[in-house]
């Protein structure tokens, strides 16, 4: 009734090729953006920013990055945590070496550095596939964590091996360090996430995305129709690394403020982001957001219900939370292997026919 294509005519080519061709989708997108930019910054507090929104937005960027590599190009990576660490450590080195340059530029440069490193670790993908590639990226995970722990230069030889973000501002508004207002933290992440999502969405709709998907679906067939596998795979690694690096830089500078590579960027982080895209939906930008929301919000929500709402002991709640999240993940994988994005697609199909399904 509300959600339909009929009567929605495109009269120009740009109109026909826009991101959201259906009017209802488009308005929904504008409303989400408006709420995110114009409403939430005014009502957000420290708890909501630090426990929910900032991690959600940052993980969404990381999930978009991994989704491009794994979901669109079909190259499995278990090194996301370490690649985020590359972003975080580059950002730290840049922040401390060039304090007068804007943090925004540092974050983008960190993305660039990470892109270079990830491309390097992506080189084996030209010869090995599937599980073997996953193992190669696993090696990257352990090697990079070891490197950042071992070489003092990366953490400026601080006694504890921790890196901590100095105070930096954008247009006079502090965005890193302890005196950051909740809304400033939220907004800087939101701006990055919006830009990243728009870039990713358009890349994946364009010729580059089509090449990635051709490689994912069948690399020999893709080669026969003229896709250069080296170019396609390495660009996927590069673009993915760029987003993951930005996520890592924001994760360290805006969200944590101080980080330690083994704990903040360990193997569990790689798995967390991988779960996000599997649950959210492989090969879908919306799925990256949905998966990040699911993995970030569910533990916080369960904790608040069990401990805050029901007053159960914290250890019981923590164990139950593992059981419930684990159970939900298995349930999702069995009932909807294509993730939350597929549920959303189905809901839209149903909405198109509603209220006359026959």
């Amino acid at each position: 009734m509300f959600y339909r294509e009929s009567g929605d005519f495109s009269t120009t080519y740009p109109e026909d090729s826009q991101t959201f061709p259906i009017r209802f989708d488009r308005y929904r997108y504008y409303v989400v953006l408006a709420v995110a930019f114009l409403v939430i910054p005014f009502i957000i507090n420290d708890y909501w920013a630090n426990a929910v929104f900032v991690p959600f937005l940052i993980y969404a960027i990381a999930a978009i990055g991994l989704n491009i590599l794994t979901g669109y190009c079909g190259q499995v990576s278990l090194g996301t945590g370490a690649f985020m660490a590359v972003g975080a450590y580059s950002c730290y080195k840049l922040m401390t070496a060039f304090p007068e340059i804007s943090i925004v530029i540092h974050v983008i440069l960190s993305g660039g550095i990470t892109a270079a490193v990830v491309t390097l670790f992506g080189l084996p993908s030209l010869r090995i596939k599937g599980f073997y590639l996953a193992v190669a990226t696993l090696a990257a995970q352990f090697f990079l964590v070891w490197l950042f722990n071992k070489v003092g230069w990366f953490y400026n030889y601080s006694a504890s091996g921790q890196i901590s973000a100095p105070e930096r501002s954008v247009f006079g508004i502090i965005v890193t360090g302890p005196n950051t207002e909740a809304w400033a933290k939220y907004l800087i992440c939101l701006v990055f996430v919006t830009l990243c999502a728009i870039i990713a969405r358009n890349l994946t709709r364009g010729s580059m995305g089509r090449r990635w998907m051709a490689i994912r679906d069948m690399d020999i067939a893709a080669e026969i129709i003229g896709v250069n596998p080296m170019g396609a795979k390495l660009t996927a690694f590069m673009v993915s690394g760029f987003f993951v690096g930005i996520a890592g830089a924001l994760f360290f500078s805006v969200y944590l403020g101080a980080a330690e590579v083994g704990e903040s960027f360990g193997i569990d982080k790689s798995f967390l982001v991988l779960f996000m895209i599997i649950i959210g939906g492989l090969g879908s930008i919306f799925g990256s957001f949905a998966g990040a929301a699911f993995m970030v919000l569910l533990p916080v929500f369960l904790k608040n219900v069990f401990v805050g709402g029901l007053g159960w002991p914290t250890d019981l709640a923590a164990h139950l939370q593992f059981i419930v999240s684990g159970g939900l993940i298995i349930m999702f994988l069995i009932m909807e292997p294509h993730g939350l994005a597929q549920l959303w697609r189905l809901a839209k199909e149903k909405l198109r026919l509603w209220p006359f399904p026959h």
Partner: protein
Amino acid sequence: MRLLTMATAAIMAASPVMADLVFPSLSYRTGPYAANGIPFADGYEDYFTLLNERDGGIGGVAARVIECETGYNTEKGVECYEATKGEGALVYQPLSTGITYQLIPKATADGIPVHSMGYGRTSAKNGAVFSNIFNYPANYWDGASHAVNHILDENGGDISGKKIALVYHNSAYGKEPIRTLTELSGKHGFELMEVAVDHPGQEQKSQWLQIRQQRPDYVLMWGWGVMNQVAIQEAANIRFPMDKFIGIWWSGSENDVLPAGDGADGYKALTFHNLGKDYPLFDDLQKYVVDAGKAAGAGDQVGTALYNRGMYAAMLAAEAAKTAQGIHGTAEITPAMMRDGMEALEITEAKMTELGLPGFGPEFSVSCENHGGNGLGAVAQWDAGAGEWNLITGYEASDQEVIGALVEEDSGAFAAENGITPSCS
């Protein structure tokens, strides 16, 4: 789902701030560090329960402990901090060096004190720079110095040419003593060998093989959680002499030595408070808390090393709250008043006797210049036959000449990095 979350948070935000003294307990009863996290959290909570049941709170105001599970994970720790600070939290004791590093800038900006008792950032001892961070009565660098002093005593004051290995948790926590040990190795002429163990430390075969090959004269350990048990077991397996194996106070609980059985006999660990339950306070604890069925957790940890430490932490917090009530003349103190109370805290033998804990810890006093107390510590040794820890030395001073300079240097660097002007006004 998001709606539901918002609803829960709205309920949480709407509940009024009650007029009691809030002591958040960022505990961990799950994960690889739970074996050490549980007794500490139990001791911390039980002491406040005792105060509420026996004395009707602190200065007539009930103490409320809000427990929040961190799993020794910094991200969850930050979430716990944000979730509890709105309740009027008076002091944070995260029992994790990683979380402490996170909270140092945040809590300072929010004006809430942090007490990292025997952990955290060592240079927080300099209160002129770290206005809201306290680490009395002793810190890691004191610990490193105590261990070296103990080795000096055993060797008649000369350890030049000896080889000392440091087995450490490869994190901010484990790396903390390296600076001091490097400095001390130059001063006393011993050779320092660094052996890192990655989180969580369940696999240490290669590290102990290295120790077996290089035959250090002594092994020091900065371990936590499951890493302790594994290290002590591995040391027993390679027949490393246990009395040459010295752990920091976080590597000295019953849970760490019991798995190795008789093999752990003679293992030494540092401590900054006394052990066992032969104190009058434990009778009250039994009567008002344990027998009344109000003990935290399973209630089976009373009197263990880490339970005592949790209780000691709670006792110091309660005493600081009393001091703050005295200074500001009001029973319902704020975090800022609590900070003043902690800065003016003085623990004397008379006070400890009055509390039912005679000789439980060293005497010390806190001031703005010194947030770290006197840095006294003792060495305890495990007696596997009797199943108990025994203090084999008194509370001894650490090498303040070396540590003082390092504290000055490190806190100065922090102040310069963060634009803080050190002041004690």
